[in-house]
């Protein structure tokens, strides 16, 4: 299919039909076991192969070199080390091996020849034989392959060109070719449709899921409404909404019109102690005619199950806008990867100021700050905290989920975190497709807001690693997966879009053989980790030592702290709303800005229109403002329910080096070869603790039933060392120890 002469090599634009043929042709290839040792996905096409290639290992992988064979398939660039164990025939397919790069996540292909470096594009020709092939990825990895002298020149040239040609879709915006290459085969579809979803996490997709969440949080007074079941009320909201029990669906329906895109205030989370509720809503729609009842209904929602105090937290002006985030991220990339085409790097003494100029850390800090304010407010008890953002689809996702990570230990576990992302991002209608811009066809909307969120979580993680059950490796894996256009979680802008895709898929499918074909399974979810990574990598997603358990909330604690919360609530007159913006509480004269305003309702006495009046001086019932302010400043260190508040001063935030600096290939030296036989000290330590813990459990059982001799013999601890080996893993350790924040 590809032709080339020895030294000059011009790639012809491949017609779609040729591609088609190629796919079908090698579809048959794939059925027979691949001689080359690459564990192929069902139906995966190996386009090119180069032998005797060495891969440069990063510091995290242990540095040094690994020799093996390089493959380019229609889906990925795969590297199989020489001594890799033979894949089992019946093993489930795994999308990416340890050394693989998906084509869709490649951003640039650069080859290094003798004395020169060249960016390879689909149309470029090479006048020299490359010695090194460097793949710059969107997820900030840099993967470097070195061609040995023994690698045949033709193989080098061919594989370089094949990669350069295939990594970019022929037509901008066409991601389906890539999806097909990975998941398009019949076998793969079959495999996917038989896959079970992780039942241990909450997907927040069905009404029952939401009921479960309400129950978990102990949110009495709230119910699940299916008023948006067919996305008629709001196209971007999920099907099921948690709303106060007091509000009937008929009343609810009238409110949608008053909010931008129909995103009405809805429940997200309840603080386990004191029962403050966290709500999210979009900005008000001002120019809509409304009735008196609407205001009452809105108030009922805002005051939720219990309270008479509501704080509306404005997320507008203090947080970066999506374009800001995009710009900052672009600069950060440029800083961390260097300018690839010109190979110009930042001069040594300007590193810190260049980092400062990216504003990335500033934005991270702003988000953390806002979220920690929200977390502190939630501690107050007996009130509602409502996050308001004009669109309610970007920063409110960040802030509400961060606040929950801080307050709710459940969200610091892997499954809890996945449920959280599912709740606050996936179903809540974050514009993943638009923000990720997989097809590179819509640069206006592109903004890595989700990556900013991951960075914020990492900052928290690095300050309190022992309070998280998941590891930074998990965050990193999620970061990387967000760059792959393969997962239903990230491929749609709203739940509605996601549902439509599954419905339409079956209808669009045209059977090839004429026979009735089963409908396409939906694309997999990102949480299906075993589809993406091997067991070893997955094992690294959780910390070796689980976080210290928090005490169960017993009556005593509640009584003690509730007193303060109730006092708070009693201080103010019923039905008070405060607006919190830029660190200042103010009381708007009327709750919804449109009360008695432009719509011209004469009945309403308050005559302020449009916006909140910011009058924190002598406003009615402002006597409770000091209480709220105290709440913001209070630093109850002894409080067992104290949220995980981040340290925000300049020196305390660091750069997520394990993520952004993975590509630092100019690292000076390859000091120690990766030592397989020696376990890391941390692992030894972990084993020690585990062993002791097991024995303790065993002995406790013994001493409880002291006279039961059977138990003695049955549970006599025998601790084979290899039992623990399964838990120990290399690579993890470095992250724990180097997690101390970077100076800059």
């Amino acid at each position, binding site marked *: 299919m590809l032709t080339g002469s020895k030294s000059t090599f011009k790639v012809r634009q491949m017609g779609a039909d040729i591609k088609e043929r190629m796919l079908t042709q090698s579809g048959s290839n794939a059925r027979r076991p691949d001689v080359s040792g690459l564990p192929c996905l069902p139906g995966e096409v190996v386009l090119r192969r180069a032998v005797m290639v060495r891969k440069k290992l990063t510091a995290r992988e242990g540095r040094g070199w690994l020799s093996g064979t390089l493959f380019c398939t229609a889906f990925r660039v795969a590297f199989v080390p020489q001594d890799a164990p033979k894949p089992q025939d019946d093993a489930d397919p795994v999308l990416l091996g340890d050394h693989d790069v998906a084509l869709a996540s490649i951003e640039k292909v650069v080859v290094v020849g003798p004395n020169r470096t060249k960016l390879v594009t689909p149309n470029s020709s090479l006048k020299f034989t490359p010695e090194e092939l460097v793949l710059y990825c969107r997820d900030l990895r840099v993967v470097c392959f070195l061609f040995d002298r023994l690698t045949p020149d033709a193989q080098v040239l061919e594989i370089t060109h094949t990669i350069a040609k295939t990594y970019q879709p022929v037509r901008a915006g066409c991601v389906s070719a890539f999806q097909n290459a990975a998941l398009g085969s019949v076998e793969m579809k079959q495999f996917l449709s038989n896959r079970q979803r992780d039942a241990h996490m909450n997907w927040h997709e069905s009404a029952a899921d939401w009921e479960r969440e309400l129950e978990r949080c102990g949110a009495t007074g709230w119910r699940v409404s299916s008023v948006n079941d067919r996305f008629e009320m709001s196209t971007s909201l999920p099907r099921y909404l948690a709303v106060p029990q007091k509000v009937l669906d008929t009343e609810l329906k009238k409110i949608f019109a008053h909010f931008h895109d129909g995103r009405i205030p809805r429940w997200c989370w309840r603080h386990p102690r004191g029962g403050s509720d966290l709500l999210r809503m979009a900005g008000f729609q001002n120019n809509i005619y409304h009735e008196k009842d609407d205001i009452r209904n809105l108030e009922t929602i805002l005051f939720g199950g219990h309270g008479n105090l509501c704080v509306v937290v404005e997320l507008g002006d203090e947080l970066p806008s999506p374009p800001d985030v995009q710009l900052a991220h672009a600069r950060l990339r440029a800083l961390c990867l260097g300018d690839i085409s010109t190979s110009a790097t930042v001069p040594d003494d300007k590193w810190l100021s260049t980092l400062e100029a990216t504003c990335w850390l500033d934005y991270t800090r702003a988000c953390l700050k806002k979220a920690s304010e929200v977390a502190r407010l939630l501690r107050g008890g007996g009130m509602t905290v409502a996050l308001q953002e004009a669109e309610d689809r970007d920063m409110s996702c960040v802030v509400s989920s961060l606040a929950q990570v801080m307050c709710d230990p459940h969200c610091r576990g892997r499954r809890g975190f996945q449920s959280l992302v599912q709740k606050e991002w996936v179903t809540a209608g974050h514009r993943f497709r638009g923000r990720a811009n997989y097809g590179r066809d819509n640069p206006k909307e592109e903004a890595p807001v989700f990556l900013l969120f991951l960075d914020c979580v990492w900052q928290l993680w690095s300050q309190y690693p022992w309070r998280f059950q998941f590891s930074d490796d998990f965050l990193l894996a999620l970061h990387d997966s967000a760059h792959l256009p393969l997962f239903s979680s990230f491929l749609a802008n709203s739940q509605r879009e996601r549902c439509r895709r599954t419905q339409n898929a079956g209808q669009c499918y045209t059977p090839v053989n004429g026979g009735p074909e089963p409908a396409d399974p939906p694309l997999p979810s990102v949480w299906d980790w075993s589809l993406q990574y091997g067991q070893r990598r997955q094992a690294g997603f959780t910390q070796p030592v689980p976080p210290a358990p928090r005490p169960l909330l017993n009556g005593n604690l509640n009584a003690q702290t509730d007193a303060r919360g109730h006092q708070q609530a009693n201080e103010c007159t019923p039905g008070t709303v405060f607006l919190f913006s830029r660190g200042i509480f103010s009381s708007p004269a009327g709750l919804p800005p449109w009360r008695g305003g432009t719509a011209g309702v004469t009945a309403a006495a308050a005559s302020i229109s449009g916006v909140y009046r910011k009058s924190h001086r002598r406003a009615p019932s402002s006597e409770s403002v000091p209480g709220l302010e105290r709440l913001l400043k209070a630093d109850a260190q002894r409080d067992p329910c104290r949220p995980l508040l981040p340290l925000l001063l*300049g020196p305390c935030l660091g750069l997520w080096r394990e993520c952004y600096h993975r590509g630092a290939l100019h690292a000076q030296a390859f000091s120690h070869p990766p030592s397989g036989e*020696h376990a890391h000290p941390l692992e030894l330590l972990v084993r020690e603790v585990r062993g002791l813990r097991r024995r303790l459990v065993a002995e406790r059982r013994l001493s409880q039933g002291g006279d039961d001799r059977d138990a003695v013999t049955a549970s006599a601890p025998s601790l084979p060392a290899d039992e623990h080996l399964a838990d120990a893993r290399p690579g993890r350790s470095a992250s724990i120890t180097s997690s101390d924040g970077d100076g*800059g």
Partner: protein
Amino acid sequence: MEHIRTPKVENVHLLDRSKGQRKATVGTLYLSATHSMFIENNPETRKETWVLHSMVSSVERLPTTPAGSQLILRCKDFRIFQLLVQQEKDCLDVYASLLRLSRPEKYSELYCLSFNPNINKEERQESWNFIDLMADYKRMGVPNNLWVPSAANSQYRICETYPSEVFIPKSATSSIVTGSSRFRSRGRFPALSYFHQDTLAAVCRCSQPLSGFSGRCQEDEMMLQAVMKSNPGSTYIYVVDTRPKLNAMANRAAGKGYENEDHYGNIKLHFIGIENIHVMRNSQQKIVDVGEMRTPSMTDFLWGLENSGWLKHIKAILDAGVFIAKAVADEGVSVLVHCSDGWDRTAQACSVASVLLDPFYRTIKGMMVLIERDWVSFGHKFSHRYAHLDGDPKEVSPVIDQFLECVWQLSQQFPCAFEFNEEFLVAIHAHVYSCHFGTFLGNCQKERNDMRLRERSHSVWPQLWKDKADFTNPLYKAELSQCQGVLRPNTTPYCFKMWKGLYNHTERSTPPCQSPADFLSAVREESQQLEEELANQQERIAALTGKPLTWEKVQVKRRTGNVGQRHRGPDPPGTYYAVPAERKRRDAKGEERALVLPLDNHSDLESGVGDLSSRSSSAGEEGQDPHADGRGWPSPLPDSSNSS
């Protein structure tokens, strides 16, 4: 005593700014000849804060306000105390006294000469023999057929600032040494600093040659030739001039300068570009200011850090070490290092290279030996650089601070390679400035001998060795491959970060923050407790079943001391430290521990874990847990299922 105008002031407010304290504590301030003491009024805690006068770098008096007069005490280890004295007169007295006391004029005023712990003469003598440099030379394999001890400098005849015993190439005769010494600034001739057994290459040190524009000296040339010959594997040596080339050239006008490659056969000259002590002094002031900022924004912090240039200087020093280590370990070529006088930058470069080259210097004992050899014995001017006496402020410079920071930066890149932790480096830093012990007093070995310091003061090293448990890095295990061999650090600028433990105390304690290493220590502590409990349980079972069980005892290899109980100085009166009354109680309780029956050791365990509570609330909760589950025995590790 004559300088103390008022020995005691009551109702003083103290704010320890470096601890991030926001609310002042009220107490009484006492001034003694050696310390300022502050004792809290609060009868429950009675916390004591001791500050050694020699640790005070500056006292500042703020304008009087209606509430009283304020004093700001800045310490040499960058801690800041704010004092509010109600009476202006008292304040003036305290100010004047401290001003005088913190600037001793004679060595005899220093604390180490009056410090007299309860040990006898033999023990004191032994404390000085704790570090034996000759044993270290023997460890690296000298004397041998290449390097021999020289008697040339006995009685400090040809170089006052060198130790009396140095190693020189075997082929260098005493006339060559004497001649070379005459051609070198302050007589500091080339001498052996480190010998690398694997490649037989050596790191040597000296001062700049007095070459001027055209001067040359045959003996010096022969000396360098001898250094080269003593490495059989190579045909040339590197001469590393750690100064920027421009500075070195400027020195030529003053009759000094650097080696001319035409005159010396087979040398390769290499400049590193470490700035001089004045630049370093100013740079450190800037980074200290950055660390002191109350609420630095991201911009303030990053700009401040960059403008201080401090990390750039640290990088330069590390680069020098890396260059030397590479030459010695990879190329097998000997290196001769010098700067101007060969006692500041040279000491830095040689000792960093030693740390990189030899795993021994990454142990606690090894670090002590290294500082003793490259700094103390080779005449680093401790008293001048660290302002032990009131003297020329231009001589003051944070030279050893930079070395310690290089080691710290390395420990960040190689967390498993060092036996000691950050605390150890901070402790050395404090002792260098404090004059609590005689080790770092004076400017060279001769001066120390003349002062008879070995008879009049104590050595710091045994003291630090005693607190070894506090200084151990939980990740280090000597037998691991990661800990062995030559370290090859990455010196790109993003690998350097600000040493928060030294320069930025502010957010360390509020809210409780714990470094991963502390966490690991805590885990280790925990496993120790588990082990103890295991023993208890076994006893119980034995009692219940009436049959002794013969499971082997689980071995926890290394034990660390109480993690939370880090005190900086040695026993009181220390450099300064704070003893909460709680700790005293706990210590007392710890002794009872053995007597407590296994069944009701609640309080015991709680106190064991309780000291972590100041650092992490999670650990504190564990302490409370026994009460929560009420099953009759404490459970330091409840089932993890609760957590997820």
